């Protein structure tokens, strides 16, 4: 008797969850309409220099923030910024915590299996910075393909993937946070770091006796797109259209954040 009652309770719970999941799926059909009806676009992103960082007042600034702000304005809706831990950013999107990721998420085949991407709205490169103490004798790039060479990178980023592909023999250590990963190289605990430019360049300039750049060219070039839950072709088309119309503006903003340091006065890192 008690067992069957428990079973009934469990069944009711499962049914409830399935029902809720169903309604959540139904809401996805028309994302743009949902956003406009709500009067608010929820944007997920992770904190990453200079994509999205806190300024001295604690407000969000950065390339992504400019993009999201303009997108929301053009759509005529309020912007709801949802800073999200990088590890959980794709699951959070899939779970419906926000409408779209505008977070410097590079378009990779693995990610495309989970989410849909728009056309690229930005193009950036992965750069390398290496430890003077450990790596000055190594010949770039083949000298780094050695089990004794250690690469560090931020977990879950394209950098780790690229390091694995380019230097399959090297040891790769992954960190939750870029700042800590750079510190490892500065301390002489790792040979090199792979990270999205302009960070490797900035750090090398800030730590000239500890770091150097084996090459000034990008290790690879990555493209970034807005990421959406699967099955929103109308919304993808809408965002693609917006990106197309704002190509020049996007390029100008990208240059401002990635090629200049004009913004540095408001940001504590400088």
């Amino acid at each position, binding site marked *: 008797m*008690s067992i069957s*009652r*428990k079973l009934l309770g469990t069944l009711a719970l499962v049914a*409830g*969850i399935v029902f*809720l*999941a169903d309604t*959540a799926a139904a809401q996805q059909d028309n994302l743009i309409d949902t956003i406009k009806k709500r009067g608010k676009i929820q944007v997920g992103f992770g*904190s*990453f*220099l200079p994509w999205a*960082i*806190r*300024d*001295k*007042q*604690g407000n969000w600034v950065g390339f992504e923030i400019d993009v999201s702000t303009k997108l929301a304005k053009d759509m005529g809706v309020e912007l*709801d910024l*949802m*800073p*999200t*831990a990088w*590890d*959980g950013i794709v*699951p*959070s999107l899939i*779970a*419906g*915590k926000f409408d779209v990721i505008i977070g410097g998420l590079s378009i990779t085949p693995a990610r495309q299996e989970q989410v849909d991407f728009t056309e690229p709205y930005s193009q950036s490169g992965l750069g390398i910075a290496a430890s003077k103490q450990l790596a000055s004798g190594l010949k770039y790039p083949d000298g780094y393909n050695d089990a004794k060479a250690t690469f560090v990178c931020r977990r879950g980023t394209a950098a780790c993937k690229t390091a694995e592909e380019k230097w399959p023999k090297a040891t790769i250590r992954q960190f*939750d*946070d*870029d*700042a*800590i990963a*750079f*510190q490892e190289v*500065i*301390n*002489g605990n790792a040979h090199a770091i792979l990270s999205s430019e302009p960070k490797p360049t900035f750090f090398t300039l800030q730590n000239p006796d*500890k770091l150097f750049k084996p090459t000034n060219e990008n290790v690879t070039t990555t493209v970034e797109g807005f990421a959406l839950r699967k099955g929103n072709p109308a919304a993808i088309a809408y965002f693609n259209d917006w990106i197309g119309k704002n190509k020049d503006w996007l390029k100008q903003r990208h240059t401002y954040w990635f090629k200049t340091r004009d913004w540095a006065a408001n*940001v*504590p*890192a400088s």
Partner: protein
Amino acid sequence: MTNFDPARQPPRKRRRRATWLDAVLAALCVCVVGYFVWRINSVLDYGWNWSTIWPFVLKTDPASGRWVPNLIVEGLFTTIRLALWGILLAGIIGTLMGLARTSRYLLLRLIADSYVMLIRNIPPVVFVFVFVFFIASQIMPALGIGDWVRAASPTMQWWLSILFGPPKLIDNFFLGLICLSVFSGAYVTEIVRAGIQSVNKAQIEAGDSLGMSRTDVLRFVVLPQALRTVLPPLAGQFIQLIKDSSLVSLVSIQELSFMAQDIQVATQRVFEVFVLVAVLYFVICFGLSQLFGVLERRAARAHR
């Protein structure tokens, strides 16, 4: 309860008198700490710079020119709110489940047993992810807390923001709170069960033979004694809860650890932020330990 049992006495303040042995030990400690500091400075190539992180504790409001809390203090408040409500909720869950675990009814025991076994045997990080993405993401929209708060009157909103933080993040806060409480509740359950079962069976039988009802036996005989027994382990568990609250930063609850990471990215000052956050957690946890010390002594005084 007249027999004196030293095991039941709370730690009491002892008279202190330093001997030469203490002096030697103290000197040794200073040497070891000094050696570590020296090692850290020589191994770790790091230019300490505290000045960039202070503005994240307090900032000057450009409008009024006054000091206002910035990210660190906001995160600290969120952590404190998580801790206080978490202790309350985990305490309630734990007490109910602890009673269920010692219940006469098989169904109640089954529910409480499954709850404890399920949570205690999976790692916290996995639990947080599973709970948030599979369970809470279904429950939270259905509860509609956020909508309800946004519809509330301004006075109500002000109170709610004191109790639960900024209205915009209230869904986020409850998500973290429920996650943390359900998780810690399982451990509290075991502590409560142990407390109840530590009460001598003869006392329950004595209560029964006096014709007391089961609730009365529970209320007047079992629980008062159980409470005294569980206070020390409960203090440990609640301190653990405060530290575990940093786990929910993984699912983007904007508490102290989450803010700390944002600030590390913005300032690139990794270790200063770590040290500051460690000090803040220590202050909260140490404060709670002291509070429980007072409660323990008071409970012992009532012990007659």
